[in-house]
């Protein structure tokens, strides 16, 4: 237990020193402000090219449209920031030989992996909460129509957290198989984005973690059980595999 606490603390300190939180905050919070503003300004930008009556019909956004747009951008671009921040977590420890000292002191390898995972999850869950509230504020301020309430945000937040639990476990697993963090990042991005491809097939859709993103952007909770169970199971499998892989790696 001492290893876990000590390593978790070390991860938080390293997160600050390596500016990981700045990267995560940019990826998650930036679009929460930028999206509603750009959505609001979009008709002004193209007002010279399209007649006003068509603009009003085409761009009649409501607060929930702004939230849906934020969730979509979070998946498309925010995921990149998250993956590349976490991509070097395991391989850098091994190949930069930083891990030798804790190992020589008898540190528990499983707890080291869990500490890394938990550290990212705490940071992402907190930043997602801030991002969603910023987006709610801006969307309600800028657009007319039914306002976004806290009860709208709670299921969205819950599903997004579960999705990013999956993404981080996948990234850590791939990080344990690669020597460079760029390779781990590219592999994790490919795997994450291909979950969206699975969602194109109706029969596979509910088994794809990306379905959580679809459900959040539609504000629906229908048929969420299968997707939730599949995503949590995949997350656990990836975590256990990462621990096994970490245990089997030779540290010089």
């Amino acid at each position, binding site marked *: 237990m001492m290893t876990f606490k000590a390593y978790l603390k070390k991860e938080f300190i390293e997160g600050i020193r390596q500016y990981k939180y700045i990267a995560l905050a940019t990826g998650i919070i930036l679009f929460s*402000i930028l999206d509603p503003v750009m959505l609001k300004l979009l008709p*002004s930008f193209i007002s010279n090219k399209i007649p006003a009556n068509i603009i009003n019909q085409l761009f009649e956004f409501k607060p929930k449209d702004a939230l849906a747009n934020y969730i979509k951008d979070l998946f498309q671009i925010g995921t990149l920031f998250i993956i590349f921040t976490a991509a070097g977590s395991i391989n850098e420890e091994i190949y930069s030989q930083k891990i030798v000292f804790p190992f020589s002191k008898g540190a528990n390898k499983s707890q080291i992996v869990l500490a890394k995972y938990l550290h990212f999850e705490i940071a992402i869950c907190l930043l997602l909460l801030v991002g969603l509230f910023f987006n709610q504020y801006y969307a309600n301020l800028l657009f007319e129509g039914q306002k976004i309430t806290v009860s709208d945000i709670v299921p969205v937040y819950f599903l997004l957290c579960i999705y990013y639990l999956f993404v981080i476990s996948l990234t850590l697993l791939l990080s344990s198989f690669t020597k460079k963090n760029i390779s781990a990042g590219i592999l994790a991005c490919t795997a994450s984005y291909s979950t969206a491809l699975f969602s194109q097939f109706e029969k596979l859709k509910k088994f794809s973690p990306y379905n959580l993103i679809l459900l959040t952007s539609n504000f629906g909770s229908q048929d969420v059980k299968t997707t939730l169970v599949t995503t949590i199971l995949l997350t656990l499998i990836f975590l256990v595999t990462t621990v096994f892989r970490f245990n089997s790696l030779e540290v010089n």
Partner: protein
Amino acid sequence: MLGNMDMEEMLKLLAPVIVLQFALMIFCLVKLKNDRVKHLPKWAWALIIIIFNFVGPIVYLLLGRERD
């Protein structure tokens, strides 16, 4: 309503994003001056930080710095 939006109102809306971008850019340029870099020379990193809004500074922080 949108048609009446003038430049000042647009700037007010975009102010938080502009402030964030400038803060991040200046922070990274100051860091770049003192850091040891990898993959690219310092002038190339400076260009990336200045040209690519938000993404440039983050790419530098994550991939461009030589770790201690």
